[in-house]
């Protein structure tokens, strides 16, 4: 189409020159120049868009590099920590159970024995001598019951506290889910980019939106760059480090008293 326009203009130019119409020839020459400029601009536009594309691809690529080099290893460590935490909780609980079962069995056994003897006493089948013996045993038994109850209480409290893993691992897993969503989004964008249809115009629009989405994904997943007082979740050793992280209740107490609280 461009070729035809140029040809027509050229024909008109020749006509005007041949007919001696200087003004018309001048105009025709100007028109031809304008056409050439338009072509130039069109080519320039095309090149600019291609450059824009390439630059945006590169931005997206580096986002994926970040995911691969930083966030995914982070996520793996976090999940490994979840395994460690749940294992520790299970072991604490099992220890408490293994300590408690013999205690409760012993209580049961002893109370049955003594209960049988008490029955004999109630049926007046017991001599005074025997009763004195039973009396002493009951004294011992009451002391045992007190101790056993305290021991069971302690073990049950250990089991109670061991359940705190669920809240902490839940928070860690939520963060990993969020990261997986970011990876998913980046992959979708990458697929869309590489399968783009013809028409640089559409591609430029898509890449523009992708760059924006990629930027949003970076912002959403930028855990370490988040404003200081946003929620960060449980401290995962090896992943959450640095002097801004306080480790343990004692350090918290120290910090607070140093501030005068």
């Amino acid at each position, binding site marked *: 189409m461009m070729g035809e326009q140029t040809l027509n203009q050229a024909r008109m130019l020749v006509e005007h020159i041949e007919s001696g119409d200087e003004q018309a020839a001048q105009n025709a020459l100007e028109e031809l120049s304008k056409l050439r400029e338009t072509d130039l601009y069109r080519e320039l536009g095309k090149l600019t868009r291609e450059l824009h594309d390439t630059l945006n691809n590169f931005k997206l690529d580096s986002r994926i590099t970040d995911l691969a080099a930083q966030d995914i290893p982070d996520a793996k460590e976090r999940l490994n920590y979840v395994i460690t935490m749940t294992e520790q909780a299970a072991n604490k609980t099992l220890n408490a159970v293994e300590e408690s079962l013999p205690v409760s069995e012993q209580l049961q056994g002893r109370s049955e024995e003594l209960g049988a003897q008490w029955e004999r006493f109630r049926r007046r089948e017991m001599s005074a001598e025997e009763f004195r013996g039973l009396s002493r045993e009951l004294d011992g038994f009451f002391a045992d019951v007190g101790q056993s109850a305290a021991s069971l209480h302690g073990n049950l409290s250990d089991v109670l506290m061991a359940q705190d893993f669920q809240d902490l691992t839940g928070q860690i897993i939520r963060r990993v889910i969020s990261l997986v969503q970011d990876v998913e989004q980046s992959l979708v964008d990458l697929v869309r980019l590489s399968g783009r249809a013809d028409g640089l115009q559409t591609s430029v629009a898509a890449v523009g939106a992708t760059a924006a989405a990629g930027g949003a994904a970076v912002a959403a997943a930028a855990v370490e760059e988040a404003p200081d007082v946003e929620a960060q979740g449980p401290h995962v050793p090896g992943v959450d480090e640095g002097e801004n992280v306080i480790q343990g209740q004692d350090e918290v107490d120290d910090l*607070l008293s140093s501030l005068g609280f």
Partner: protein
Amino acid sequence: MDKNMKILIVDDFSTMRRIIKNLLRDLGYNNTAEADDGKTALPVLQTGDFDFLVTDWNMPGMTGIELLKAVRADAKLASLPVLMVTAESKRDQIVEAAQAGVNGYIVKPFTAATLNEKIDKIFERIATA
């Protein structure tokens, strides 16, 4: 310190609310209620006549720090003792909570002894204030 005081426990994980409720029961505090977010907790506090608030930080609707600030900004609730029990352990967060007027700050995972100690300390301070 009144063992019958009314305590509100706020955490988005129900397991954690249960743990804290049982620990408080063990310490003799049986008058407890629960909320699963700062957002649901605030109206409960406003109509509820509570003596003590125990809250997490990281919650989807309204975070614990926002709840604390809202409590301190409400004339009726401003002097309510608040204890934060949370996994958030960055220095800036602890400082922000202290500046916003929190009475105590416990990091998870914690022990029953720590909870007991911090509660005692909070009410000692209030008594001598």
